[in-house]
């Protein structure tokens, strides 16, 4: 049984280590913040100029001057600091953020990422995605294993325009978890009742299976 969005998010929350500074993308990645383990202190960065992002506001806390990178109203915490976009991306580009979790359209077996543009469709822009994947120490992708059409999203080479080259360290899909390093892509964990065979059929990228593959 493939993982649900929540299960994928919960899985991704294992990435959090005490003291980490983390940037979460829009969509499923945002859900990961709901699963920060007890005793693990994580500070969320929002690339529009904030460190220490709090939860959504209650109705009477709403403040038009306080939004996240998805333009959603949010709140501050006691630890919060604000800064300019230049300072925010100096932080990102300079390698000071420990972890970025984001969505993807395609990932190649070498860790190339495509998540910003579909040729022929109106392009909205890459926002901060290219800066994040280039600058953040560890990049984790959460995405459905296949497109709605059934097409593979883990590919030998990305077809869509790239967001970054060799930038993805881990991919969490509804079928399992993949690590990417210089030796290539490796399946390290399977969702319940999912077989290696099924994953292979639904994946274009070549991958090895970890010796200590975890079956849930």
């Amino acid at each position, binding site marked *: 049984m493939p993982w649900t969005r929540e299960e994928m998010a919960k899985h991704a929350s294992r990435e959090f280590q005490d003291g980490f500074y983390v940037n979460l993308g829009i969509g499923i990645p945002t859900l990961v913040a*709901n699963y920060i383990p007890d005793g693990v202190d994580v500070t969320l960065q*929002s*690339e*529009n*100029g*904030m460190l220490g992002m709090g*939860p*959504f*506001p*209650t*109705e009477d806390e*709403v*403040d*038009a*001057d*306080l*939004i*996240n990178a*998805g*333009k*959603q*109203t*949010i709140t*501050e915490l006691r630890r919060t600091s*604000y*800064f*300019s*976009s*230049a300072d*925010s*991306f*100096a932080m*990102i*580009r300079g390698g000071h953020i420990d972890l970025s979790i984001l969505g993807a359209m395609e990932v190649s077996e070498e860790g*190339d990422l495509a998540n910003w*543009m579909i040729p022929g469709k*109106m*392009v*909205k*822009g*890459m*926002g*901060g*995605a*290219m*800066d994040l994947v*280039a*600058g953040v120490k560890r990049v984790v992708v959460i995405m459905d294993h296949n497109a709605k059409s059934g097409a593979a999203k883990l590919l030998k080479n990305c077809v869509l*325009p*790239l*967001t*970054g*080259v060799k930038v993805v360290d881990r991919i969490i899909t509804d079928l399992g978890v993949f690590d990417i390093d210089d030796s290539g892509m490796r399946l390290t964990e399977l969702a319940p009742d999912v077989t290696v065979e099924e994953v292979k059929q639904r994946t274009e990228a070549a991958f090895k299976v970890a010796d200590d593959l975890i079956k849930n």
Partner: protein
Amino acid sequence: MDKVYKNAADALEGLTFDGMTIMAGGFGLCGIPENLITALRDSGAKDLTVISNNAGVDDFGLGFLLQTRQIKKMISSYVGENKTFETQYLSGELDLEFNPQGTLAERIRAGGAGIPGFYTKTGVGTLIAEGKEEKEFGGESYIMETGLVADLSLIKAWKGDTEGNLMFRKTARNFNPMMATAGTVTVVEVEELVKVGELDPDCIHTPGIYIQRIIKAKHEKRIEQRTIRQRGED
């Protein structure tokens, strides 16, 4: 030198012309110079190149200038919230240059800081790198990006004094401080205009040297995504 002007129209008097390059602060609709954008529309200046992270929404912010077709080209990182934009872009009326958000922010800072070019890892191996000089540092590839300046920067601050010293509030700071430094002329609209000496000199985000004109104005501060939690939820 009196930097204080009566209203937005007055503050733009003599500064606008066809074909000019404008920077407009803000992220989404947060911290945008609402009143100066309206005054820019009313100035009638056309064929504008506008440098702004986003393009407003259809009926607010830079959307106004798209409606009147005063913008020829946008330099932005994300324009997803604007149908007018989409229509004009797809019909070829509007030119568009996408920059990664951090590259855009740094290009503006560089422009204001007298740095004509710098190297970044952002965008290496992507469409963004096409036609750009590539150089290796420590065995890794970087691309060169250039500084950006504008004929006029329109920005929005929270508090400002009559010397043009400014403070921004929360995430409404965003692109405003860098744009203040990169305009040949910079005009600011503030929510509170205070006397010189009322801002803490250790907390001034933008020193008055960067500001040529200042107005006090009212702000609608429209919210794009009003996300709420119930009281008691985490």
